[in-house]
Structures are given as C-alpha cells and as structure tokens.
C-alpha cells in the first residue's frame, strides 16, 4: 500500500538528481518536458530542521493508554514529536493531546513556572468565601486577594517551609511518645499532602514514604476522586482494583458495553484496538450513556439513560440472565463449573438472584429512562455473547470510567459490574473482563504506590492498632512465615484468622501478606516496627515507625481543616483541587483556613491562588522514571530536556524537602525517640521456643538517593533507578520489575516481538498479542488478570512445566513435579537463578496476595539486611538460614543452599493457594452489632433486610411528605441510630440495618423524582461526613441549605427549568484544564466553557446556540455558553419528563481561556460509603437564560499576524 521501501542510499541519489534539475535553465526544462515539481526536504514546509535532531523515547503524559512518543530535539530545544511505531499500545498513533504536547515544554510555553515564589500579600479570608454563593461573588473576592509573589531561591523556599512547618508541628505537640508505646497516629499530623497522579512511580513511592516517615497518613491523591470506588469495588470482589484486560485485548471482545466511559474522547488511541474488532465484524459496540458521545457515534446499539441509575441498569442484565432467559444462566453447566472454579458458594448466588428479581424491565425502565424494548435488546445481546452461554468461546466486557465511579454508591456500582462479569463467565479471558480505563498517565502507578490515606505501597494495610504490631513482632519471631506456616498467638484474638498452623482462611492469608510487606518496608526503609525487647511481643514496648490508622482523604480533608481543626498545612503537588474538588467552595474555605499552603505545579494554577509558596515542577517528559499505564504495563520515561528555568522534577523537590525537614527537626521517628537503633532479628526455635539470634540490623531511615550516576545534577542527587530497584524490594506487587540476577530494568524492555510457543505463556502471547516482552506488568508480568482458563477452555490446549528437583526455590508441593498449565502463569526470576512460571496452574483471585514462602520459619525476607543502605546501595544481604535439627539448630550461608539470588526470594503458588482464592460475590461493608439507646443495631444480609425494607421505605416516604426530605432523614437516623435501619419484626430490642453486602439501586442524593427518591433512598447518610450536611457542626448551620434532595427543594426561579446535571471531560482538554487551556493547539479546538442543553429544553426556555445561560443550585451559580444539541436527552423517568444537561469541567480562572465558572462549584460532594468518592456525575440544578454581561470568560491570548508566528 505504501511507497516501496527506499533505502537511504536510493533516497540520497534521488535527492541529488533533484538538485541537479534545479540548476537547469527555464527553457531547457521546457524542452525536456519539465518543470519537474520541487523536491522538498523533510520538514521544509514547517521549517523544521529534522535532520539535525536526536531522538528521545517517552510515554505520553496525558491519559493512561501509555502511548509511546518519539521526541526530536536539537540540544535542549524540542522541535518535533511523532508516535512511537514500535509501541504496541499506540502503533505510532497519537491523539490530539499527545500531538499537542510539544507545546508543554517551557521553550514553547511562556506560562510555565520557572522560579520558586513566596506570597507577600494576604490570602482570601474564610468568612468572605463562606458567603460566596455565585460566580460574581467569588470573582470579587478572589480578584481582591489576587496573589502577589516574590521570587526566591530554592534554599529560601525550603527554609521558609521547614521553619513554618516546625512551628506548626510544635504547636500541636507532635510527639511519638504515647501511653502504650512509641508511634504516631497517622490522622493527627497537621500537614496534609496531596500529590497528583502525574508523578512517576518513583516519585509516588517517595512521597508516600516521606509522609509515613513523618508519621502521617494525611496523604492522598487524585485517584481518590477518579477510580477509588473502582479499586475498592474490584479489589473487594476479585482481588485487585485494576483493568483485567489490556487496551490491545479489547479487539477480541464480542460485545463491548461502554457504560460510564467515553474512550473515543478520553482514551482515543484505545479505540484503535476496539475498532479493529468492530471492523472485523466480531465486536458489537453497545453504548449506554447520559450523553450521545463520540464513542456513541461508533455504537451498534446506543441508549440514553439517567445519571445515577447505573445499578438498576446492570441489575436488569442479571434479571434477564436469571429470570427472563430460558434456561436461566445459573442452570447452565458452564455457569456451575465457572463459579465453582471461583470458589463461590452457590448460596451466595441465590441471595443476589433474589435481589435481581425485583429489577424487571418495566421497573428498570422507570428508573433509568431506557425504553423496555431497548433494555431487553441490550441485555439479550450482552448475555448471549458471554462466556457461560458460548462455552467460553466469546466474551462480553464492560468499559467504564467516571460514569460508574463518581457516585456516593460508586463502590456498589463497580461491584455490580464485577458481579455481572463473574456471573456470566466473562472474567479472566482475553476478550473478556473488566475495563475501568484510568485517567492520568500514571494514575495506576500512583495508586499502586498508594499515595493514599489508608494503605501503604502495594495495597498494604496500615497498622490499625498496637495489637497488630505485637502480633507482627510475634510473626517475625516465627521466622517470617507464610499463612500456612504461621501460628497466630492465642492472645491475638480472632481478628487475624485461625490460630492453628496449616489452617488458613483469607483473613489469615491477607495478614501474613501484609506482615511480609511491613517487613519489606522495615528492611528497605531502615525503620523499626515491633516491640522492645523483640523476644517479648506480648508485653514489650510497642515501637512503630509505621503510623497507626488511616488519614483524611482528598474529599473529606476540608472537614479536617474546618471542623476537626487537625490539618493546618498542606503540600499539593501536581494537583489543582480548586477546580477538581466537588462543591468547590468548601475546598476554597479549607485552603484559605490553612496556616501554610505549598503548591508545586507547572503553572500558576487556581489552587495557587490560595498558596503561600509556589514551586515550579516538571512535566513527565522532563523526568526519568517508570510509568504504569491503565492496563498495568510499566514503561520507562527518559528525560527529553530538563524543565526551563529553575524548575525541578518533583523527585528532587521531595528529597530536598525531606533534607530540610530533617534538619529543622520536623522528622520525629518513634524508634529514634525511644532510642532503638538496632534490631535483634530472632527466630524462635519451633520446638524449644529458644530465641535464636539470626543477625542484628541497624535502624536508620534511608532517604539519600544521591548516587551521582546521572549527568543531570538534579538526578545525580535523586537517582530514579535506585528508587525503581527499591520499589521492587519494598512493594510486593512490583516485585519482579527488576531482574536482580541479570541487573535489568524490565520497564525498559522494548521488544515488540511475540514469544515462541514453547516459552512461558508463549501460546497466549502469540494468539492474543500480549506483548509480554514489552515493559513489565504486575503481577509477575501477567497481562490478563485472573486468566486461568484460556488455554484449556478457549483454545482447548494445556501445557506443562517441570520443576526439576532442587532447581527452584519452591516448596515440596512443586519440587520435582510436573504441573499442568491452563492459563497465563506469569514468570519470575527464581532465587536459584532460573526463570519459572509464577502462578500455577493458571491462577485465581487474590493472586499476588496469596502465596507460600519456601523459606518460612528459616530466614528473614531476602535472608535479611544489616541496613537499608547496605541492601540498596551494595545489594548485600545477610544470607543466613537456620537449619533445625531436632532441638538443635545450625546457621548456614545461602550459597550452601544453591541460592544465587536471595533478593529474588522464594515465593511460590501451588494448587492449594489457587483454591483458597475466592471471588467475593458477597461483601458486607458493615458487620457486627452496636448499641443505640438501649437497643442493638444488627447489620444484616438481604433476607433479613427484606423483612423490614418496605416498612423503612414507607416510613421514610411518609415523613418526607410531612416534614420534607432532610428532616425525614434526621428523624429516622435519630430514631433508629443508623440509616437504612428499621426495628426487627421479631425482636423488639433489635434494629436491623442493611449491611450493603450486595449492590442495590440507590437514588443519587439529589434525585429528580420524589417517588424514586423515597422508594430507593440515597444511602449517603450512612457516612458521617455526609450526615454533617444534615446536622452541621456549630457555626456551619448553612451547610444543610446547600443541597436539594428533590427538585422542589431547589427553589428554582420561575423562568428556569430544573435539570439533572452530569459533568464530563472531552478529548480536547484534560482535567482542570491547565495542561490544555495553556496549550494553544488544543484551545483552538474548544476555547470556551459551555453546557450541553437538550434542544427541546432550549426551545422551551428561549435559549439559542451560544447564548449565555445560568446554571445554579443552592451551592452556587455559574455562567456558561449554551451548546444546544440532540446529544443530551429528554427522558421519561417514572412517568416524569426529565432533562439532562452536561457540563465539561475543564475551566477555571487561571491561565489561558479562563473563567470563574468552575463547574464543580455546583457539583455536590456527597461521599461514597467506602472511599469518600464524590457524587459529581448526578446532581440537580436549574438552568435559564442569563444576561451576557454575567459571562467572564477571557482568552488571555490573541491572534498574531502571520501563518507561523509563534
């Protein structure tokens, strides 16, 4: 199809001929039948001297597809970029943002920050902001207190920050000494860190490490607002909260339900792969969305639905499968076989089947606004193309993004998607699974590294209490065992699992996994977690350098500032919460109330309006580091050029900050306060109980990454490759990303060649284009999660692997055996040097969390490390094993055992491990009982809840009619002590409360229809932060007036219409807009803020395209352009006409193309019951025509004369 391949020599020959011709005279040319048209140099038209460039490979810094980019530069001047043709994710293609990202470099972008700055004028006061309930009022305040900056040096900036933080930390008496030991309570640290998903893995890891060493869990990042409910919903159900398929794999899907996402706009290059299937005729695309999106334009079936009715829609798919289909899917042998393989109890299926029975097509149509016929068509298409109905030959898959996640029941929605996939046999196959597409380039990585307030890197539980630390010390003393070899001490109680060796359940396995990871942190961070003396875990003094508990999140932090008065300072890196926080005025008040706000960003952002210190950071292309894309591929980014001016990569900033904080005495490590500088690493003799000293290790936190290996001065100080290696050791999930035997960074692998069939996972790699030698993927380079059956079921083949006797560091279950392989196994470097399959056979849920350790009871993790410094810089281990001989023992060196790579450890997975992993169909989020006014509130499952459900709903509806919605909530919550609770019909002293074990439909807090709002009441009031809006703290009474649970409470003006609002992103922009409004190439496409209005509504209200409209509610009022369109619907919901409008939320008042019309000002912040996710996808507002002078959009740039001026 293309030009035949020309060699470089041919090319030069042709070029030479071209120049010769030019030398001929006009008349000669005429005679020769010329003129020949001009021969152009590459890039001549754009005046790009490409032949003088060198190239740098990188990964696109916008969305999470992970597209490769080749940058062309001359010195430090980047003149061009093209898609990387070798990268299997984008095959040389890019989206408009990727293309335009050339303009992000400081050389092309004068708006980039270039120097640290300190504010010299007052910040906007809380009391003034409290009254700002409209765009005009907000604008007046923020312009009055516009920041005035003084440029400073980095040293001045750091000294200023450290000094202020020292004062703040002193003022709250920050001290690790507690009554029962030495530790910090993570939620009480006065500094909150918010660090964005644009950071590299190394940066994300370091910032969480830094916060933890400060004693703080008040650290979180934007993943909280984007996919936290996905992570919680999926991890709680199948093990990990991640995309199970890859973008490439979407081409093998048979029916692709795009429900809550819009990949054509937000992940455009992913559509490349999806459309391959569609164009082949093997993939049917179904789009169900409140908007007719650009993805919808590609759909085979499209349906509008009402925002916030997600669970009802998905429930109908189950209803169809269980109650309408003949035979019902649960009677199929394929179904029974599949759920058995998932270790699901068939009784669990009965319970959800019972729930699904209520969601008939008619009822779901009333809730969602989707016509009955269309519902049936969609459900039928979906179910009949699923694994259980096609004998695992075809698979249906679900894609989503913020559409499912951003609801106060987001966790329930994503769980619902998972349950649909589990039920229909669509999980764990190429072409089938779950596809939550993540937003930022590295949000998967920053989530994995857990810049989160509730978990440590690799999804590891933070110590919940001092008891867990005592049990941990006891676990260490048992020789760092896996769950099968661990005996939980009697004094530990029942919270850790069965206390009998060999007997396991998932609780025990998870705890042993968490403990092994705490040990990884101890060894690699140089900290101590345990008791002194080590031999006495029960009575010794608890000393923990890992803080206790959980911190504030990105959504409830403002309550921590304003109500709880715990947070007094914030460090915000690469985030712009003044645009992205929902009910944004609450964020403004929170920010304004801080004693110190430090913002690190590329630009002077909206958030910087509230800052005391503004530091210039670097973009992904200006960094070295690893990046994890949405389907978990870890790829390496090389620095293209350093950031302009004095700007620095975040890694450098973090480590410098640590240096200053340490110097100024802000770092107060519990082990230091106690004086614990050595750990005696002991293992108790299993027979005699005698503590045997394995070795002693030094306790000294490791935060010095200056290796001088990089020529760039900033990276000479902060070696990202050293941190990459540390992550491999410290974070179990990422263990394997570095090859300690061959000393290779696997994220740097760039082989597009598929494996041979006889290599590990070779058949799958070849058949389904897994690209297993491109980068590396967690867990253990597995590309399709839970891929346990593809070989046997889909391809009808199995393979084998032989564990040669004593050749691998595995247990007796595998040693010398041949195992049958039915799915994808992944691979690891064995401690004895070879490469072997990781998960045998195939794998199952909780892979990577459940495993056995061949060295249980015999040595420390990695065979021990004398100090973190020695471990990381010299890669030196202790290497001592205990060999027990009756009552005696001896110590042997690892080399005597044939071990070549102790850092590779000895984890393995056998059939027993696989069969312990269970898909959690049922997942109660509330457990046990609590006392309330002399009665017992008991959290119950569906069968019990069904006894009182109707009565609960009935009483609520009656109270709502007489008192109003909010008072009805308050009345019932006060009466019964819990929301979604009602007295037991059987026991007068008992109140039954729904335990949320299965998803059900809950109306959004702001519902357009009273009948639905009372029939399916919002669940929000289960969560304390939400209930504060019903019963506000003193001084904040107005909070209860800021929302409207039904249209009647909105108080809409008479010339306005009440609408359901949903918010979204578009391909031309990115999140808070700083990365795109400041990029003229993208601003050209969509410069101004607007709202999509259904045409019939616009006609009714006299709104014409481009008019200025007011969109408002009790929270705020904003002014936008009217996009009058058929792409947003008028729906019939429960017999009522409901209009949906849509607002892209990319605008704010800073940078180019600015306005004070921040969409999130009118969005609500009712939080998910599990993760605190905000409900930005469904809320109420009114809309009407407004006077054009209300509109304050400014372009802040102008057209210059000429074609190429810039």
């Amino acid at each position, binding site marked *: 199809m293309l030009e035949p391949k020309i060699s470089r020599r041919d090319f030069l020959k042709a070029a030479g001929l071209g120049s010769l011709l030019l030398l001929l005279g006009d008349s000669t040319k005429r005679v020769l039948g010329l003129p020949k*048209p001009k021969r152009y140099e590459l890039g001549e038209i754009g005046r790009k001297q490409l032949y003088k460039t060198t190239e740098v490979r990188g990964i696109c810094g916008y969305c999470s597809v992970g597209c490769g980019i080749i940058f062309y530069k001359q010195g430090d001047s980047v003149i061009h970029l093209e898609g990387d043709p070798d990268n299997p994710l984008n095959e040389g293609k*890019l989206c408009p943002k990727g293309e335009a990202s050339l303009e992000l470099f400081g050389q092309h972008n004068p708006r980039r920050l270039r120097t640290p700055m300190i504010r010299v004028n007052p910040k906007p006061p809380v009391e003034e902001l409290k009254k700002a309930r409209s765009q005009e009022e907000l604008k007046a305040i923020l312009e009055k207190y516009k920041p005035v900056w003084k440029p400073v040096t980095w040293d001045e900036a750091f000294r200023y920050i450290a000094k202020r933080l020292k004062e703040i930390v002193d003022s709250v008496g920050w001290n690790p000494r507690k009554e029962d030991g030495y530790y910090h309570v993570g939620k009480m640290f006065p500094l909150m860190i918010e660090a964005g998903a644009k950071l590299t893995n190394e940066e994300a890891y370091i910032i969480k490490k830094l916060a933890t060493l400060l004693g703080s869990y008040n650290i979180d990042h934007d993943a909280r607002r984007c996919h936290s409910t996905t992570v919680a919903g999926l991890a709680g159900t199948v093990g990990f909260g991640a995309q199970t398929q890859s973008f490439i794999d979407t081409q093998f899907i048979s029916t692709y339900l795009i429900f809550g996402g819009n990949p054509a706009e937000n992940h455009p290059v992913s559509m490349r792969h999806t459309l391959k299937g569609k164009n082949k005729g093997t993939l049917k695309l179904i789009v169900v969305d409140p908007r007719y999106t650009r993805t919808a334009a590609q759909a085979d079936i499209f349906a509008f639905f009402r925002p916030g009715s997600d669970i009802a829609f998905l429930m109908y798919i189950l209803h169809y499968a269980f109650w309408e289909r003949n035979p019902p899917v649960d009677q199929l042998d394929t179904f029974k076989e599949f759920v058995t393989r998932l270790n699901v109890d068939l009784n669990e299926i009965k319970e959800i089947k019972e729930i699904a029975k209520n969601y008939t097509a008619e009822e779901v149509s009333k809730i969602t606004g989707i016509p009955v016929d269309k519902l049936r068509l969609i459900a039928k298409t979906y179910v009949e193309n699923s694994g259980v109905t096609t004998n695992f030959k075809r698979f249906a898959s679900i894609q989503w993004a913020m559409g499912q996640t951003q609801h106060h029941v987001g966790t329930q929605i994503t769980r619902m998607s998972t349950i649909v996939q589990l039920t229909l046999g669509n999980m764990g196959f190429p072409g089938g699974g779950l596809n939550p597409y993540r937003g930022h380039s590295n949000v998967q990585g920053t989530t994995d590294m857990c810049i989160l307030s509730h978990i440590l890197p690799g999804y590891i539980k933070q110590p919940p209490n001092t008891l867990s630390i005592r049990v941990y010390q006891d676990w260490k003393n048992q020789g760092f065992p896996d769950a099968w070899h661990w005996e939980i001490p009697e004094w530990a109680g029942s919270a850790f699992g069965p206390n009998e060796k060999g007997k396991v359940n998932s609780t025990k396995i998870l705890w042993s996994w968490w403990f092994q990871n705490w040990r990884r942190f101890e060894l690699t961070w140089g900290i101590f977690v345990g008791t002194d003396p080590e031999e006495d875990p029960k009575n010794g003094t608890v000393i923990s350098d890992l803080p206790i508990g959980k911190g504030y999140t990105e959504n409830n932090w403002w309550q921590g500032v304003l109500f709880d008065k715990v947070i007094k300072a914030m460090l915000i890196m690469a985030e712009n919460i003044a645009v992205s926080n929902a009910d944004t005025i609450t964020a403004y008040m929170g920010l304004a109330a801080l004693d110190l706000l430090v913002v690190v960003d590329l630009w002077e952002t909206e958030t910087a309006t509230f800052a005391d210190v503004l530091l210039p950071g670097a973009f992904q292309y200006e960094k070295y580091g690893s990046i994890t894309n949405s389907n978990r591929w870890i790829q390496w980014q090389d620095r293209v050029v350093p950031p302009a001016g004095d700007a620095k990569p975040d890694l450098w900033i973090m480590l410098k900050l640590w240096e200053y904080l340490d110097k100024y005495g802000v770092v107060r490590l519990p082990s230091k306060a106690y004086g614990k500088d050595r750990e005696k690493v002991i293992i108790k003799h299993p027979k005699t109980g005698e503590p045997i000293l394995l070795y002693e290790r030094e306790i000294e936190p490791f935060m010095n990454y200056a290796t001088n290996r990089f020529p760039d001065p900033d990276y000479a100080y902060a070696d990202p490759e050293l941190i990459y290696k540390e992550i491999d050791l410290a974070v179990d999930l990422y263990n394997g990303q570095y090859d300690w035997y061959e000393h290779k960074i696997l994220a740097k692998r760039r082989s597009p060649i598929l494996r041979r069939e006889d290599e590990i996972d070779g058949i799958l790699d070849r058949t389904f284009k897994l690209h297993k030698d491109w980068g590396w993927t967690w867990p253990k380079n597995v590309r399709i999660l839970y891929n346990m059956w593809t070989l046997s079921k889909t391809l009808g083949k199995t393979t084998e692997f032989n564990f040669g006797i004593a050749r691998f560091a595995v247990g007796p279950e595998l040693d010398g055996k041949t195992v049958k392989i039915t799915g994808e196994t992944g691979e690891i470097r064995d401690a004895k040097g070879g490469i072997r399959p990781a998960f045998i056979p195939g794998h199952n849920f909780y892979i990577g969390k459940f495993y056995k350790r061949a060295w249980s009871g015999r040595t420390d993790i990695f065979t021990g490390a004398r100090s973190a410094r020695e471990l990381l810089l010299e890669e030196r281990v202790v290497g001592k094993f205990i060999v027990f001989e009756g009552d005696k023992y001896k110590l042997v060196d690892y080399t005597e055992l044939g071990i070549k790579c102790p850092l590779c450890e000895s984890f393995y997975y056998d059939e027993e491990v696989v069969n312990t992993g269970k898909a959690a169909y049922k997942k109660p989020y509330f457990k046990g009982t609590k006392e309330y006014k002399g009665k017992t509130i008991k959290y119950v499952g569906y069968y019990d809840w069904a006894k009182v459900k109707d009565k609960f709903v009935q009483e609520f509806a009656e109270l709502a009619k007489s008192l109003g919605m909010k008072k009805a909530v308050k009345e019932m919550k006060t009466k019964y002590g819990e929301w979604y609770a009602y007295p037991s019909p059987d026991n007068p002293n008992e109140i039954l409360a729904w335990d949320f074990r299965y998803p059900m439909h809950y109306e959004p807090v702001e519902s357009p229809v009273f009948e639905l709002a009372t029939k399916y009441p919002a669940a929000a009031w289960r969560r304390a932060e939400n209930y504060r809006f019903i019963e506000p703290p003193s001084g904040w009474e107005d909070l209860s007036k800021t929302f409207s649970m039904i249209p009647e409470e909105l108080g809409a003006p008479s010339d306005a219409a009440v609408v359901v609002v949903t918010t979204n992103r578009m391909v031309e922009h990115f999140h808070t807009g700083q990365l795109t409004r400041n990029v003229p190439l993208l601003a050209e496409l969509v410069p101004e803020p607007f709202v999509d209005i259904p045409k019939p509504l616009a006609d009714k209200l006299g709104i014409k395209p481009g008019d200025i409209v007011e969109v408002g509610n009790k929270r705020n009022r904003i002014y936008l352009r009217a996009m009058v369109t058929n792409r947003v619907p008028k729906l019939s919901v429960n017999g009522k006409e409901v209009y949906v409008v849509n607002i892209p939320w990319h605008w704010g008042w800073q940078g180019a193309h600015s306005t004070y019309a921040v969409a999130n000002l009118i969005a609500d912040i009712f939080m998910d019951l599990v993760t605190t996710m905000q409900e930005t996808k469904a809320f109420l507002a009114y809309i009407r025509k407004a006077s054009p002078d209300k509109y304050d959009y400014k372009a802040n740039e102008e057209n210059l004369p000429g074609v190429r001026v810039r």
Partner: protein
Amino acid sequence: MGEKAIAFNVDNCIFCRACQVACHVWNNTRPEVTSFSPTMTNPPDLLPNVWMVMEAKEVVDGDGFHWLFFKRQCMHCSNAPCANACPVGAIEVHPSGAVVIREDKCIGCRYCVEACPYDVPRYDEYTEKVYKCTFCIDRIQNGLEPACVSACPTDALVFGDYDELVNKFKSEGYEVYGDNVNDYVGKTHYIYVTKKYKGKLTDPKYFGDRLLKDPRKAARATIDAIRPIGWGLVGLTLIGALGHLVFWRAKRMEEKKKEEEGGGE
C-alpha cells in the same frame, strides 16, 4: 513516486481531531485563537494558518440521530483548477497527486482562491500569500505518511497508492467519492469512503455540502497567458541529507505495516 491518495473513512472517525493538531505541529502553523463554536467545528472555516478543519454536524432523519464527522482540506484535484489559474506557476501538481503552493513563488494574486470550487485556499494578509494543505509533500517525498494520517488513531485516514486504495475500498463494499468527480477537477487525491452513509456522501443534508456532485467555478480568468512570467521567480533550494533517526522511523512504520499485513490475524 506513483499516484497517491489519502482516504478519509467516515465510518472510523471518532472526531478526536488529532489530525487537525498534527497538521499544525508538522507545518508549524500558528494555532488560531477561536471562540465558542455551537457545532464543535473550530475554527469554523479554513484559515491561512489552519489548513484542515474537522467538521461536526448533527442530522436527524428517519433513522434517528446522526453525528457526522467530516475532514475538510484541499482535495488535491488531478486537474487542479487552482494550478491552472496560477499566473506564476506557483502551484505545482506533483506526480503523487499533491497540489502544492510554493510559498517562495506565490505572489498573492488569489486567482487560485477564485478558481477553487471547494473553497479551500486562504490568503494571508500579513505574508501576502495563499496557503492550503500540501498533502504533506515534504513528508511523502521522504517516505513518511502525511502528518494527519500518521496521527489518526483509528485509521479513519489511510494513505496509499491511488488505484490500490480505491479498489480496496470498493471491493470491501465502500462507496467512494473522488475517483471520478467531473471534468473541472478530474479526480481528487483526497477520497472519502463509507459503508455506513451509503448514498449520502453527496447528499447536501449529510456530506454533500462539501463533497460536491459537480464542483466547478464559472469565473476562470484567462490567466494562462500570463502564467509563464512566474517561472522567473523559481528559487534554488538545495536538498540536505536526511537525519538518520527520522528516516529510521519511516522505515519502521513501513515494516510494521508489512508485518501486520503479512502476519495475518
């Protein structure tokens, strides 16, 4: 180089507009500071600095609602009326089919603007020259696909040998616009193909306002007489050696394609 075509496959377009940005990036043209567009098309029209525009249009018909996406730029006619009109021979029709205005020769007379039935060339008052899409002549002559094609993530844009491409789409059941338009323009080297909107390519309600059934302009001045004068303005340009790295990429793209085609699914 043989005759080439760029095919815009209407059915595959997701209106991401990577092409519009890629066009700017490659040609180093200034992005326009625009204002709100009620149709999403932005800028609403071609400009001297915007050589291609993605257009979006909402249509409601008996089948329901359609959101149509159209790529607008120079059609690169074989009998290019603009080139025929140019008095100084500044518009060259290349063997590949590319119709290219030479910036060094253009005298800004705007005869081409008058002659173009598709309303494409744009005059820049600042440089006093006329600009339009070049078919990425400085890429295709050097073995690269045009920038818009190279960017397009969903292969809605395909570049290839003219006849091969036309035949391929026709044999797959696509309707094709451009391979035989009329005597005024000949055929166009930008071709438009669809299966989804068969019979609607030249219907003005759908794409026909752009894909004219019978494109022609009445006023073609007797320019031919004065055209030779322009030849004197030819400047000398030396072609330098091509950087290995850029060239390497072209080769890789090539090989990739081959692998894909040869490898089979």
